[in-house]
């Protein structure tokens, strides 16, 4: 009854002991995450002007991607899963983006309340 319209090959062969991520990789990822946490803290005490926040976000995003791709096994996932995840992100950005579009352009006309 199933229609496999994704990459059936990645999910089709049942049990996935083959997918089990090697210990070494898990440990390396963990160490990378720890290192990047240190980096986040360190860089926060360096004055980068307006760049402090973007750098912090960038590091956090790399960390998040590591967790998603390795820990959450996204690298084995079918395209549909990727689509789901990116859709979520896209709509979150939409929510923030359009709200901020209002907030940042409020003063442009120079008339209060417009």
């Amino acid at each position, binding site marked *: 009854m199933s229609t496999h319209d994704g990459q059936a090959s990645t999910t089709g062969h049942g049990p996935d*002991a083959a997918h089990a991520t090697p210990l070494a990789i898990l440990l390396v990822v963990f160490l990378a995450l720890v290192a990047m946490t240190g980096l986040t803290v360190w860089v926060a005490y360096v004055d980068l002007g307006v760049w402090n926040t973007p750098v912090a976000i960038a590091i956090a995003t790399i960390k998040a991607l590591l967790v998603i791709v390795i820990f959450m096994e996204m690298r084995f996932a079918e395209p549909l899963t990727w689509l789901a995840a990116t859709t979520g992100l896209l709509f979150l950005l939409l929510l923030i983006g359009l709200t901020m579009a209002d907030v940042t352009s409020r003063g442009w006309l120079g008339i209060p309340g417009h």
Partner: protein
Amino acid sequence: MSNVAAHSHVAHQFDDAAQQRRAVTLGMWVFLVTELMMFGGLFTAYVLYRSSFPDAFAAASHHLDATLGAANTLVLLGSSLTMALAVRSSQLGSRGGTVAGLLATIVLGCAFLGVKAYEYAHKFEEGLVPGPHFHFPGAEANHAELFFSLYFAMTGLHALHMVVGAGVLAVLTVMAARGRFSADYHNPVEIGGLYWHFVDIVWIYLFPLLYLLGRH
């Protein structure tokens, strides 16, 4: 693929284990999307207010303990590692490894919550809890109060997710200990893992956004 129909863990509405696995995984990811949107409301508020009152937010952020925050980040990352190990063990069919990984994750999760509770208590003592008794030693006390409102809302919702997550993991631990999972069937562990990692990711963002403002 056909022999799996013999296994009782394939629910009646599914044809086979592969279909079930596909459905369950997709379901969890869709659920995570809804979680993302839920936190999204708070992130929107954060972006708006932070951009409106940058100085007040920086000043207020100084009243958070960055060392504790960083330590807690490490604890949570550690729990993600143990969670990943638990999933790995379950994929390899190791019952002991799965139970150990899950238990370690729960312990680390509780440690995180403990530190969080300590921080909250401290905020109460300092009068940094929004409301009639809020007291902020500095300019722009009202905007600082806004920061703490967001702080409590965001970390509170996150902590709530941790509590739920720990509960789920506890159930999984019991199931694993009773030998309900095998190399053939371990969807629940994977699904629980996805949830736990998601909660971790939220914190990866919360930490710099709340604790490390204007530290330079």
